[in-house]
């Protein structure tokens, strides 16, 4: 039943950005397409402004945590959070990073260009874009996670991700999410 292909992916953001939903639909799609799948959600006190970090391991029978320098992709819904977990990326991996900053109260924020520079030195490919702007274009800022899944989709060994997203988003938000996924897809060929 289980397929051979493996894909390790990290989805990271701050509380409320939809990391849990994005990783959930990834896992559900993998399960339906016959893969073994395991993920680890680390969200301690995320509802109170903290980081949400999810490891998703498609086709893996190991533990839920991805080892350092071995993730095939990272989806960073917020730029600084993306860099916080970039050490998990494989040297050949792909980073998909939203350039829209969510400031951290009481801390200085490094220039986004310096973050992207470090990311470029870390992995094989960087897709950097203002995904928050695309989410607004799609009709709702909350579709940010679906925009970024749209960009991730072409890397995945999965074929039905879009259908599973459509099934899981609230009915009234369906159209915006379909648009968001398609807008994200357009950026999948872009690299730095």
């Amino acid at each position, binding site marked *: 039943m289980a397929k051979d292909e493996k894909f390790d992916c990290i989805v990271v953001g701050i509380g409320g950005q939809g990391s849990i939903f994005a990783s959930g639909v990834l896992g559900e799609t993998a399960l339906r397409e016959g893969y073994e799948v395991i993920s680890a959600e680390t969200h301690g006190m995320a509802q109170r402004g903290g980081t949400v970090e999810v490891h998703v391991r498609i086709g893996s029978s190991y533990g839920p945590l991805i080892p350092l320098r071995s993730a095939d992709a990272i989806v960073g819904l917020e730029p*600084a959070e993306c*860099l916080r977990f970039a050490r998990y990326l494989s040297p050949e991996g792909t980073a998909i990073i939203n350039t829209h900053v969510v400031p951290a109260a009481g801390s200085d924020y490094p220039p986004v260009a310096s973050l992207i520079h470090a990311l470029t030195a870390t992995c094989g490919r960087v897709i950097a874009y203002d995904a928050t702007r695309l989410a607004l274009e799609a009709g709702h800022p909350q579709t940010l996670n679906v925009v970024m899944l749209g960009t991730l989709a072409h890397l995945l060994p999965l074929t039905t991700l879009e259908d599973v997203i459509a099934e899981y988003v609230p009915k009234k938000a369906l159209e915006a999410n379909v648009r968001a996924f398609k807008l994200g897809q357009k950026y999948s060929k872009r690299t730095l």
Partner: protein
Amino acid sequence: MQHSSRKYLLGNEAIAYGLLEAGISVVSGYPGTPSSEIIPFIARNVERYDKPPHVEWSVNEKVALEVAAGASYCNVRAAVIMKHVGLNVAADPLMTLAYTGVKGGLVLVVADDPGCHSSQNEQDSRRYAYFAKIPCLDPSTPQEAYDFTKYAFKLSEQFEIPVILRPTTRVSHARASVKLHGHDSDQRLARFEKNPERWVMVPAHARLRHVELNKLQPLLRSELASLSSLKLKKSELGVVTSGVAAKYVEEAVMKLQLEPSILRIAAYPMNDDTIVALINNSRKILVVEELEPVIEEKVNAVAGTVEVLGKLTGHVPREGELTVDVVLKGLGQALGRFVTTNLPVELIAVEHSLPSRPPILCAGCPHRATFYALKKVFKKSAIYVGDIGCYTLGVSQGTIDTTLCMGASVSMGSGFAAAFGGDREIVSVIGDSTFVHTGVPGLINAVYNGAKMTLVILDNNTTAMTGHQPHPCTGETATGTCNFQTSMEDLVKAVGVQGLYVVDPYNLSETEEAFVKAKDGDGVQVVIARRPCIISAKKAGALSKTKKRVTSTCKNYFASCKICGTLFCPSISYSDSCALISEDCIGCGVCEQICEFDAIKTA
């Protein structure tokens, strides 16, 4: 749920399925990360059953275990759910429950938290299992958590003994494909056979039951041996591992292209035979387990001249959670190989520049206002004795000086008061759920023994930190039915406190006034600061109707006062020392009340 199916489940949901399919009649517990999702999942799914189990949030873990024990004495299956530190609270009934044993299967799900993701310590529940001389099952994946849950009931009934199922954070909060096998046991009718020698633990009976408990030990060891797996290889190195660490070992040996013999322990008490078989086949043993060196001590006891490496030799860290990378390092060290991960210097440099995002109280959290007023009245010199909950975050406002365990704020407060003999102001701070959990006995004790202190009950009408579970003062139960609401005021009054004030923390002047009265009052003074949790209020739609818009006309000619900064509100930021109000402001209006320049307005 009648036939086999595959689902993508959280470890805790897999455990909940296991409990339902095992035909439990009663499930109880107290919320605590990482165990909190189990009871709500069962509560949401009981309607599917003709005869749904009794599901309850109990007031604390001791009570929860006793509820489950009562049911189990009546030959029905019962489960009790808690986090590791909850077992400290439930330890009293547990130790003697091992003597009486049980009738219907009784399973304690106790979730450990290596790395203290959301806990005040990283104790190891396997130690409790040894202490109580009862079996402990140690799953490594959500699938095993499900399978072991069902097996735990059979084991419990076969030996008439309570069983601990001990998932860790990376099992409880892992999500994975889980194969469900369907319903395998029906609920039974309750029947209790009176038998004082079995159920009444007076010394004469307890002595005999202790003999019976000890007699069970070798039987348990041989029964549980089959759960462990031993793969012998032609290798000098043998690895012994357990729980999620067993998965890290699998991956690490693959990465290093090693083929050591591996013994995976899945249950306790451990059987010597399999450990001896591994030792006889190896020249060097590495033990990889999370938390305490429980297995390592056992291996050391039977190892003879074979070298045993692990936590006691520094090959595996004693604190924190393990990862594949930690295991890689330990394996490398054991083999005299240097294993390291190279990170680009550019990345390391940037990691140091990343902003920190420490958890803070939500925008509009009523606790923030209470803490502000508290600090203003009782000043920096008072000692603020804290407790377990969101409000521990009040440490940034300087109004939490200690956090020990559930309920300790009240009783430690009376200890501080006794030590200072009235020379210092003592303020204990506790949440509503924690007050009901173990704060009440401390309050009775403080009043009875003549403490001079102020107790502030931060009443947000929920157990907020763990995901908004109800308790007796909320008027709701685990299944949502509203049958009774304990009055916190009546409870406090009945204890005999000398002053009781109930305030709305959003109203700062009213709150400060109550604190002043409490400060000047005699004996134990109680202030209940009452306002629903802002997350509950948002979910209930209570905000959209009343939401006020807050605007700032702050100019830096107000001498960069930053008075509103002392609130540590995530909706307030500064640009050129002028306060800015962000869009996520919920309009509580507390900053308007403290601004001395009338620069913040709500409308």
